[in-house]
């Protein structure tokens, strides 16, 4: 029996460590859905679908009105963590990324600027504006070795939908792309 408990304890610790390694900087209470990972060319991409309630709670905590928090969280919201480990800097633009739904629908990702336009009237207070803006995946970024960027993104798909994330970036004068496959939107 002691042997059993010792092994359970060790596996529990291992599970925590592995989960930490996979989720990286982006752990939260809503993260029991499967993280999907892609890595290659010195970049690693982690995508973790988020449940609606913690997303709403986050926005309400930043000062969002309840209807706006609900509207954002009714999308399929997921967190992206990009880690970069190659020597040549890489540059991405979220506006070039797309998702491909199971039904074959191709959709762009909505950058933070487009959301801010949607929240323009009535305007958000400064805390809500900055909380929202900086919780979203940056629209454009140049990463050097050792850099990590992370943030949320949202696509208008219903809970339980599956989709692939098609991303691209430029490094060393060449364009590169990747597909993160099989991301499943969280149930509410």
């Amino acid at each position, binding site marked *: 029996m002691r042997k059993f408990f010792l092994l359970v304890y060790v596996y529990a610790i291992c599970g925590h460590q592995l989960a930490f390694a996979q989720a990286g900087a982006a752990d939260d209470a809503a993260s029991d859905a499967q993280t999907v990972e892609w890595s290659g060319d010195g970049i690693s991409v982690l995508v973790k679908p988020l449940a609606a309630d913690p997303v709403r709670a986050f926005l309400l905590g930043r000062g969002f009105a309840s209807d706006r928090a609900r509207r954002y969280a009714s999308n399929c919201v997921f967190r992206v963590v990009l880690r970069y*480990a190659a020597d040549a800097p890489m540059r991405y633009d979220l506006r070039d990324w797309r998702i491909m739904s199971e039904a074959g629908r191709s959709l762009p990702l909505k950058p933070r600027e487009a959301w801010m336009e949607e929240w323009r009237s009535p305007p958000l207070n400064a805390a809500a*504006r900055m909380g929202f803006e900086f919780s979203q995946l940056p629209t454009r970024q140049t990463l050097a070795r*050792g850099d990590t960027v992370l943030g949320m993104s949202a696509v208008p798909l219903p809970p339980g939908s599956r989709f692939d994330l098609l991303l691209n970036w430029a490094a060393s004068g060449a364009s590169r792309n990747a597909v993160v496959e099989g991301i499943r939107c969280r149930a509410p």
Partner: protein
Amino acid sequence: MRLDIRLAAASLGLLALCVQPALAAEPAQTLTPVPERAQAPDLVLEAVDGANLRLSELRGKVVVVNFWATWCPPCRREMPALERLNRLMRGQPFAIVGIDAGEELEDVLAFRGSVDPAPSFRLLLDREGKALRAFGVSGLPTTLVLDREGRIVYKALGARQCDHPAIVAILRSLIGNR
């Protein structure tokens, strides 16, 4: 007893296997040189301890400027290492300022009280985002390093182990290069 020792050894081995991927996932502990070496914006920000700080008052020191928020998990995790760095560099022409993105004084104070070691460097409030805009920050955490002339010479996107020897060596070299 022999069984316990074998079990303990097996457990440690398993733990080592588990810890390895976690460590492998850690980012490289380095800072990225900024070739333009632009002069940092000179802003006045409210410090959580009351007095305002004009950033140019720190001229003559190497300054680590860390942009963060209490709701940002990697920012929270980075804070103890920043404080350890602060203690390591005590007595040298060096300063750290943590610029909070858009939160209220009580949020920052509550967080500071929960960090071990608690930050003793200056925490500043950027309630309207003017510092974030002026420095061109688009994600959190972002860390910039200013040389003793107030130029932006290094940056880091995402959290770092700021008291890592490789980073400390870069900062000491900047202190020496006047």
